[in-house]
């Protein structure tokens, strides 16, 4: 890889924005991997559409991060020229697509959170973040409905679809705790009314997913041990492979434009 990684001055607000943008970009990229491979045409279009929404959200938040940082960086550099350890996304969103159930359970856990989170963020004292939130929450509502319907269809479907959905829930559950974790830098932003404390949203998130999972005749794991690390740049092995594909053009042909 010929191109040097950029350096980012991670003030709490820049770091906050990177975390949210990275979530959206990485999940969007994961969903885009289904393009041309989904089990049916409608779902191919749905997952690609959701990927587009998420990548669009990522662009807005990266641009904002670059503006706050006030250096040479822009949305493209932030996406293409940071290495694995500089990525701040949730471990949940980088998990491989697996089978269709695993993709949809990952999508369901994230969308149920994003829906509540962006709606709460509309009250941010930061005008740009509030505006991004107002756009994103509308999209997230559709993403949640889409994923919820699939969870019910899979869970309350055949023995095999039920077993696969339950296995995906059991597998991904330990990655959900990270969505609600807050570090000191983010705590200061919360106290200043700039961002929402995700910890306060966990109860509502749990209610949303429990309702759907119950209707789907699935169960939530009792185990509450949660894996963390993504927010601090400690990732699973999967993210490096994802980035090597996502960044390959810019790494191979630095500064390439279409």
């Amino acid at each position: 890889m010929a191109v040097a990684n950029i350096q980012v001055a991670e003030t709490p607000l820049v770091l906050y924005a990177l975390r949210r943008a990275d979530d959206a970009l990485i999940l969007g990229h994961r969903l885009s991997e289904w393009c041309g491979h989904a089990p049916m045409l409608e779902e191919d279009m749905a997952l690609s559409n959701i990927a587009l929404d998420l990548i669009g959200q990522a662009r807005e938040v990266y641009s904002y991060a670059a503006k706050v940082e006030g250096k040479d960086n822009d949305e493209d550099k932030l996406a293409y020229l940071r290495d694995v350890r500089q990525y701040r996304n949730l471990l949940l969103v980088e998990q491989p697509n697996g089978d269709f159930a695993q993709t949809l359970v990952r999508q369901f856990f994230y969308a149920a959170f994003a829906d509540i989170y962006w709606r709460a963020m509309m009250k941010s004292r930061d005008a740009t973040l509030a505006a991004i939130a107002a756009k994103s929450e509308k999209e997230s509502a559709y993403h949640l409905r889409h994923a919820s319907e699939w969870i019910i269809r899979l869970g309350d479907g055949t023995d095999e679809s039920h077993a696969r959905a339950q296995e995906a829930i059991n597998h991904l559950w330990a990655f959900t705790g990270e969505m609600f974790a807050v570090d000191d830098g983010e705590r200061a932003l919360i106290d200043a009314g700039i961002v929402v404390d995700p910890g306060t949203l966990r109860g509502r998130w749990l209610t949303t997913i429990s309702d759907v999972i119950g209707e789907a005749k699935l169960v939530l794991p009792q185990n509450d041990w949660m894996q963390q690390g993504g927010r601090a740049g400690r990732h699973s092995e999967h993210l490096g492979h994802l980035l090597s594909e996502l960044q390959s053009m810019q790494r191979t042909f630095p500064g390439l434009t279409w």
Partner: protein
Amino acid sequence: MVTVLDRDSELRRRAWDAAAGVVDPEIPVLTIADLGVLRDVVLDGEHVEVAITPTYSGCPAMNMIALEIEVALERAGFHQPKVRTVLSPAWTTDWMSEEGREKLRAYGIAPPQASSSRRALFGEQSVACPQCGSDRTELLSEFGSTSCKALWRCKSCREPFDYFKCH
């Protein structure tokens, strides 16, 4: 002074009309004015700046629309026009004009309903068929050929159709 103001408002109206005539590349019967995407036209001397608001965050038509606005303004005699994207307030289908809704229906796309129905997680939706007007319709896919549309089918005339989702 009065003549200057008149000239400015005349210029602004010309700039607005030029920008307002740009159509959505995905739904060419709708102009950006019909869609409510065109938010403002600001004149500073001879220079014009157009404010638009994106529909969906990732909608690829937005880049195209910005380019088309620049071309339309150049054609109308405004040099080096600028297009600015404003995020707030967030675009909503409630801004779509009545005329726009009628054009959509005539084009075969069911127009968006009021945004109050969007929140219901599994709420009952009823969308009238744009072909025959029947209410006996069913959702085929929440996501259609573009970000803004869902795919429906009419059980009366059996035609599939696009529904412009409320947003």
